[in-house]
């Protein structure tokens, strides 16, 4: 009783067309149909943020979006945050600041940080902690993550003037 349909979306600035059943989440589609496995699954009910992607300019947990809802949407995943093959400021800050241990939450944190910096270019520590509260990390104790976000914000302000 397959009721698959064709969905067309812009994913990481490229048009993507995929077949999907209504019951498939965007997370499942990204990972299984499009092989974009950088988006991680941690809980499947919106509580851990590991599957965070940016959809139409807003951070969402892709486990709580249906794939069919992506019709016509613009979606950015971890694979699309840096298009020229190098690392962007946020990725560099996480890497240089040792802001990851096991790394499973890292793509979600980076996407959420992208959303934060798009909204607020110079966030305070409290802003960062509030904005990232939907992303769980069990390894780092968050200290180095928060510092990396601060460093990324600073660096981005330097590079974008």
């Amino acid at each position, binding site marked *: *009783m397959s*009721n698959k*349909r064709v969905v067309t979306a812009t994913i990481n600035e490229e048009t993507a067309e995929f077949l999907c*059943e*209504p*019951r*498939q*989440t965007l997370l499942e589609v990204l990972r299984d149909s499009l092989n974009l496995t950088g988006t991680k699954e941690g809980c*499947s*009910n*919106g*509580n851990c*943020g590991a599957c*965070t992607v940016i*959809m139409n300019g*807003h*951070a*969402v*947990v892709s*486990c*709580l*979006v*249906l794939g*069919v*809802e992506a*019709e016509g949407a613009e979606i950015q995943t971890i694979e699309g945050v840096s298009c020229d093959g190098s690392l962007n400021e946020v990725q560099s800050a996480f890497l240089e600041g040792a802001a990851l241990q096991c790394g499973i939450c890292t793509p979600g944190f980076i996407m*959420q940080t992208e*959303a*934060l910096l798009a909204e607020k270019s110079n966030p305070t520590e*409290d802003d960062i902690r*509030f*904005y990232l*509260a*939907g*992303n769980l990390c069990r390894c780092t104790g968050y200290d180095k993550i928060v510092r990396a976000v601060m460093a990324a914000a600073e660096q981005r302000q330097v590079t974008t003037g």
Partner: protein
Amino acid sequence: MHAFDYKSPEVLAEALQQLADSDGSAKPLAGGTDLIDQMRTGRHQPTLVIDIKKVAELNVLECAGDGLHVGAATPCYRICGDDNVQQDYTALADACNIIGGVQIQSRASVGGNLCNSGPAGDSIPAMIALRGICVIAGSAGTREVPVAEFCTGPGQNVLADNELLVEIRFPPRPTASGSHYRRMIPRNEMDIAVVGVGASVTLNEAGTTITDACIGLGAVGPTPLLAARAGECLVGQTVSDATLANAVEAAKEIISPITDMRGTQEYRVHVTGVLVRRVLETAISRATGDPCVVRPGH
């Protein structure tokens, strides 16, 4: 997840027709932050999911002479980011700012929060306090139900199978009024309210006497509650600790909390008292013009 069909109408009449045609086996989808998880766990197994986000009437966010209109599918981030809401319907902004995390707020709607009808839904006590009215459309036309009467039990509400919540309308705010929503959660974010309290207060011109008050309570009964007597007992009273204490006692009288993994019954009764007082204090301060910036969770 079970298999289902998906439709995304762009016109209200079309959505209503699809609902009517499905004999109760359809579920409307707005932000999906409750529904998709509930379908994953098997709690809901609709054969049709009707994505109502593209219907214009369900996406309004307008503040006009007749008050505030919030489309049922309007996501939280738009609501708490709206200047009018922040300024005049602050309790609603307070609530929308703490429903889930930022990612949830990108999608979740207050209409969905209402239709999910959880006793602890954060936006509901705020909307009760602001005297929200649910505008419900069905094949037989439109009817209005106060937010305070919308939920009828855990996960249950007044909507018939062929009805759709279109918007929540809030009356214009009088001058010298203020409102606040606050909840007790064990963490500072990403939690379900152990107790949630919304309150709206209007003062006289001198700012000394309460001329109107409305209090909503969450997570202390099978549905969110309007603490009617608690609000009424404040009217005509001067602002004082004793006045607020009366409201606290009146609020505690109507609650029937349970013990669960989020808190004990005894604790919830106690916290209801603490939060009613604190929320009223903040609402009163806001009515006097002090914005009272609150740090969620603290």
